[in-house]
């Protein structure tokens, strides 16, 4: 398995948000689609040496749109029940 399943998780009030740097190519499609505009470029590098993303968990509503539009399935969002 060549996928490095390293994760960066962020916990928030509405849910938990995880990015897999081994899958993220830094295309930025999720940044544009975020309805709360709370995704920003991160210092962590992705698989192509491009920046990955990190959310502002104070604003994140865990809607999961970023995970839906990610062509690489690099984002996992879990809503708090």
């Amino acid at each position: 398995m060549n996928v490095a399943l390293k994760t960066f998780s962020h916990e928030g009030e509405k849910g938990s948000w995880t990015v897999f740097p081994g899958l993220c190519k830094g295309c930025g499609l999720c940044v544009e689609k975020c309805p709360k505009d709370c995704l920003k470029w991160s210092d962590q590098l992705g698989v192509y040496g491009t920046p990955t993303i990190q959310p502002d968990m104070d604003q994140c509503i865990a809607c999961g749109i970023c995970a839906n539009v990610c062509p690489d399935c690099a984002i996992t969002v879990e809503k708090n029940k």
Partner: protein
Amino acid sequence: MSTLPQMPKSWRLESKPHKFCPGCGHGLVLKALGEAIDELGIQDKVAFGCDIGCSLLAWDFFNVDTVQTHHGRTTPVMTGVKRANPDVICIAYMGDGGGYAIGSQHLVNAAARNEKITAILVNNCNYAMTGGQMAPTTLPGMKTETTPYGRDVEQSGYPTQGPEMVAAITRDGAYVARGTIANLKQLKSYLKKALENQLAGNGFSFVEALASCPTNWRTNAKDTWAFVEQEMPKYFKVGELKNPAEKGDE
């Protein structure tokens, strides 16, 4: 380490990250297709054929039997597989160059014969693998490598409208639709209906998906979404053109 990526089950985790460019629409179309395969539970019955061009990078994408063929020949290869073993669910996956230019003969004839296969065509308005030359689907006035001043419709004609063409030449029982990566839920429902149409043995199923190509459009994420959501649907109308399940069609 406890969390796993939320991938469709039919995706092959060992081959990820996949080989498509950052922001490529193929990933989203294949995600929708993977989810449709999962929901129908047909992973063990699918034969997946990919074409030349960017779509060939899907050769190790799924945990299904895959064959890679040349220049639009994925449609006749899948036709052959279907005729030899009608229980196999055959998916012919191609790009707009393979489907509308070099391999259009195969698409047209398979549609005219109403072969019981599912063809999925990803339209990104250029020949992406060779560096972004003008394709049959390049929009009027769109700049590519070979049309640096924009596509001149006097010289090179208007873009091919594939689903309209396929809808015109197919008989009853065919399913024809055009989806877009800007509306993934709708695209997934179209792909699912196309696979269900093949499972029911009605006839040819064809879905065109409008997709992005940030590398060759030379766009950032914002302009990529703007082009997919605003420019492409102006010429390529999204929707179902032919659905045998709906009454009153034909």
